[in-house]
């Protein structure tokens, strides 16, 4: 039996007059990695951003319903929603503090006890494999880390608030092969604890890590399903064309 954590119903998103998403209906399974693929400008990134309502911060307008564990997220306090649905952005975003302060930025706000902060930092840095690299330099400015390390720090920081779901928006597009592999392996580990939704333009990446795949075009879902089935036997013509095109 599949366990569903997130379900969208007729989700529409528009910027002013411009409609970006048109009636999205889909499900996300617990403890799986779901990859969202599609040509650029298809709305995949907007879709991801609407799942924790950050799209509204960019001036987008949301309609429809999104259920997180059977509660409509439009009725949830924004803070609780964003705490349970974390997000990692395309370019690594680290705050201009030390590594340690980056990690305790959110827990401190949520009132974690001082004694526990250290544990939180170490535990989450370990999950991203960053701990061994930086354990002697926790007071170093985070902006001095390499791009790959910064992205892993961003992921670790996102884990500090104990999210259920992690959204990643093309997290590897600015990284080299080695760092990409690092992050992919890490995501495969993390999916035992979290539900992961990743937007990617890299088909082979989707193939390597995703359990399920959603293919979008022009603001709609064209096809979705298990990744093996979809990559081997796409049903829809547009999916076929896109996959062919991307492979060549």
């Amino acid at each position, binding site marked *: 039996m599949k366990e569903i954590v997130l379900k969208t119903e007729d989700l529409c998103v528009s910027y002013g007059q411009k409609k970006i998403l048109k009636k999205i209906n889909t499900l996300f399974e617990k403890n799986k990695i779901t990859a969202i693929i599609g040509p650029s400008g298809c709305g995949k990134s907007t879709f991801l951003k609407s799942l924790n309502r950050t799209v509204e911060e960019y001036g987008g307008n949301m309609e429809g319903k999104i259920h997180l564990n059977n509660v409509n997220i439009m009725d949830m306090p924004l803070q609780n929603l964003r705490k349970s649905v974390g997000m990692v952005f395309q370019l690594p975003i680290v705050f201009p503090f030390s590594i340690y302060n980056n990690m305790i930025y959110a827990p401190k706000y949520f*009132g974690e006890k001082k004694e526990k902060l250290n544990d939180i930092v170490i535990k989450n840095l370990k999950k991203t494999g960053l701990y061994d690299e930086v354990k002697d330099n926790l007071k170093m400015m985070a902006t001095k880390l390499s791009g790959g390390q910064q992205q892993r720090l961003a992921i670790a920081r996102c884990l500090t608030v104990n999210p259920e779901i992690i959204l990643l928006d093309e997290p590897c597009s600015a990284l080299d092969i080695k760092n990409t592999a690092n992050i992919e392996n890490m995501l495969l580990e993390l999916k035992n604890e979290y539900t992961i939704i990743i937007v990617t333009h890299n088909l082979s990446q989707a193939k390597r890590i995703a359990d399920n795949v959603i293919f979008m075009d022009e603001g709609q879902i064209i096809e979705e399903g298990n990744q093996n089935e979809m990559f081997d036997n796409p049903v829809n013509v547009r999916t076929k064309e896109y996959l062919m095109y991307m492979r060549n």
Partner: protein
Amino acid sequence: MKKYNENIFRIVITIGAILSSILVLLVFFYILNESLPFLKKVCWKEFLLGGTWSPLSSNPSFSFLPMILGTLYVSFLAIAIVMPLGIGCAFFLSFLVKKSHSKVILSFIDMLAGIPSVIFGFFGLVVLVKFMEQNLDMVTGESVLVGGILLSVMLFPYVITGCAETLEKGKEKYYIASQSLGVSKWYTMRVIMLSYAANSIFVNLLLAFSRAVGETMAVMMVMGNSPIFPRLLGRAETIPSLIALEMGTATYKSIHYSALYTAGLILIVIILIIQFIAYKVNKMGSRRFK
């Protein structure tokens, strides 16, 4: 750990913003309200086109024309001086001086903006006015010319900083491409950079002009302050000087007092027109170089 409260923060911010807005509106309200009695009583033809300003005589006449002309005269003069110097200096700093040197020079020019205008007035009085009296055989050195020269120095930072910034951008964008065609450095500057920066130079000059129009102390100290029609080597008075000099003596709520508020209103209208033009030109410019 103290619990942080979002609502309190929002309320504090909003109260602060509202308070500032009220103060801003209050200023405008007072200027309009206090000049109303004068505007009602004196016909616009008289105060804009009349000949003399003698508010205290038995048959008072209120004409701002000498002061308006004086203000515009000295401001235009300042712009005419600062324009070639400022633009030339911006080129000089962007293209001919080492980057580290030009940074130091620019920060000194910027510091000029921080020097209180009363100090410039003092400088004008002891250096420029004296020079005029000793070398040009003038009875009194206090004149529109000195005011213009002094103002132009005060406008250096406003013109040069902005222009140098634009030229720096233009250099990054086009300099190498132009140089690779084999033309001379001077030709590149003259043809490409000048046309690239023309718009922004113009806007900078307009803003500097609106600054010149509102300048009070420096101009007041070197121009002699006679409410007569301005000549280059004669005394004249500007609107800000008029306000600063007569406010202390005008009786509260008298027509004289209201007239001074009207003078302020006229000044604001002049500045508003200049800023509006600058805004429009700026918009046009940013469309051209996208």
